[in-house]
């Protein structure tokens, strides 16, 4: 009896221990879920991160990608309780790619005393119109897509006189100071294309990019066989197409965005020219291929960053974006938007930690401290290591060349700007 009883009791003990451990594991999982769901019992402060981008109109594909990616970052931060005691909310505004609307949005965001930082905008000229409004309010702005160098380095950057005008302005994308010359070097030296026809849309981004490209291309010995300016709202470019075909250019460099770039390229092809159209990050969109169809095969675009597919940190982002069920793709700036939003979240976190676990009571103090904290923000983001230099520019200055092959943008070269 004694032996049998001892064995039985020991079996029971083992079973009970296993079950208890499992139950504890389950209960631990359960309590984490509760917390991540935002249901913890502590008092929470809700702050708003603003997003400004073109959510309607021709550039809405890029704008929606920015908004959705920021939304994903906010949801992730709330789910993981990234900042103890703080819940983030997103407020997105549509600037329709118009400078005036962007400025109105900036004023509106400044007027909302819950807003602690703003992600956006897409367009450099819109960014320019917002900078002063945010600067006056000490409200930090992180653009995932502005590439015009003057936004961070001042109007005389090209003469070597770099001057930061707004301490509130930051960006996670690299600039046209690198993008234009890199494209020129690549096309002239690697592709051996020596004759260019240069077209721009007269906007801050387009004219600036075409300028940095043209300058380097000529210094390399390249020949500019023709130039033109187009109206970005036009869609009939047959006259320009004919001029390009007659010029015998090896390629066309277009400083502008995909809504005009795609029909321009298609009409150049239809005019009998085999010259590929090459442009910057604003041509690196699925919409460019959808609009131009087979006529844009062989066209090239440089874009900020290394291809996301080569980044292990980006894989989780891509999977989470997919499972979140957003209707539109994250597009060219998705990863950069996620990182811009995460940078604001990290700056808020630094302020909370500095102030004994809570944000300052006064919104002006909060904004000022968040802006100051942004300068020191560092983390491993979707697009690589995220940090900012003395101008508010990203320290991660990578960019890639993509070629349209088989109806997709395929990476053909990646470069890193590393000033020694």
């Amino acid at each position: 009896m004694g032996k049998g009883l001892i064995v039985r009791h020991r079996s029971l003990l083992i079973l009970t221990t296993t079950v208890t451990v499992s139950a504890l594991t389950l209960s631990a999982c359960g309590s984490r879920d509760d917390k991540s769901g935002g249901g913890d019992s502590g008092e929470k402060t809700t702050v708003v991160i603003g997003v400004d981008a073109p959510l309607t109109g021709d550039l809405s594909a890029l704008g929606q990608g920015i908004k959705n990616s920021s939304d994903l970052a906010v949801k992730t931060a709330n789910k993981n309780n990234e900042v103890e005691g703080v819940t983030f909310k997103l407020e997105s505004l549509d600037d329709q790619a118009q400078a005036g609307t962007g400025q109105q949005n900036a004023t509106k965001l400044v007027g909302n005393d819950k807003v602690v930082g703003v992600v956006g905008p897409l367009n450099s000229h819109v960014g320019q119109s917002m900078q002063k409004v945010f600067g006056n309010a000490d409200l930090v702005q992180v653009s995932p897509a502005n590439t015009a160098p003057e936004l961070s380095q001042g109007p005389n950057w090209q003469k070597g006189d770099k001057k930061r005008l707004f301490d509130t302005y930051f960006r996670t994308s690299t600039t046209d100071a690198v993008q234009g010359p890199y494209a020129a070097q690549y096309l002239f030296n690697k592709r051996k294309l020596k004759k260019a026809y240069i077209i721009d849309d007269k906007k801050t981004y387009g004219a600036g990019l075409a300028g940095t490209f043209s300058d380097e291309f000529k210094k390399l010995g390249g020949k500019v066989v023709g130039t033109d300016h187009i109206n970005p709202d036009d869609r009939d470019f047959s006259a320009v197409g004919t001029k390009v075909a007659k010029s015998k250019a090896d390629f066309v460099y277009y400083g502008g965005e995909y809504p005009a770039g795609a029909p321009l390229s298609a009409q150049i092809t239809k005019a009998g020219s085999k010259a590929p159209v090459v442009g910057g990050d604003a041509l690196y969109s699925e919409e460019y291929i959808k609009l131009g169809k087979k006529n844009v095969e062989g066209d090239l675009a440089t874009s900020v960053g290394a291809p996301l597919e080569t980044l292990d940190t980006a894989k989780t982002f891509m999977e989470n974006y997919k499972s979140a069920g957003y209707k539109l793709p994250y597009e060219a700036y998705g990863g950069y938007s996620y990182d811009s939003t995460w940078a604001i979240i990290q700056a808020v976190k630094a302020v909370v930690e500095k102030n004994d676990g809570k944000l300052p009571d006064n919104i002006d103090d909060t904004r000022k401290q968040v802006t100051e904290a942004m300068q020191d923000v560092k983390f491993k983001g979707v697009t690589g290591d995220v940090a900012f230099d003395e101008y508010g520019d990203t320290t991660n200055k990578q960019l890639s060349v993509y070629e349209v092959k088989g109806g997709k943008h395929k990476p053909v070269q990646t470069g890193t700007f590393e000033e020694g």
Partner: protein
Amino acid sequence: MGDVLSGGSDKPRLSERWGGFSRGVRRLIVGLVCCALLAGAAVWILRADRSAPAARHKVPYPVHSTRITFVRVFDIDAQKRSFRIELRAVTKHLVLVRRVTQQYEALTMELSPPQAVTVRPGQARRVRVTARVTSCRDLPVRARLPFLDVTLRNARASQDLSFIPGDRYARALTRVFRTVCGPVSRS
């Protein structure tokens, strides 16, 4: 015989032990064991899921783990139209620098010595390149952003990348080209 519990042969069988429990206890045990198994499986799946990407690709692509910066231009020989370039490579994961070139038509470049340079994590390595100007005609003297084509190989992949060393490198090249070719030399 010692401790009878260690014997084994006279141990009651599992079915006998199971039969000794009341119906209620048996139901409870079955329920709890199922819960425990489910919990264990869930934890295992979650952990496996989280660690899977990291396990698959422990080493990042060379472009994300290696930094190459320009140090200096030296040994300029105007007669031979040659000069040397010193770079500094640092990496987070072991990498081989297999090739460094610049795609100018009038310029050749090769590693010096020609063997691939092994760069180990945490140890900065000097990479030296010998360059020769083959023709002073068409030499881009004032280019603002020349880049170097570098082939890197690590455990993950081999990549041909552009390293853009910036203003200081561009100015150094301009000085060398002017020294080697002279301000008016075009042959």
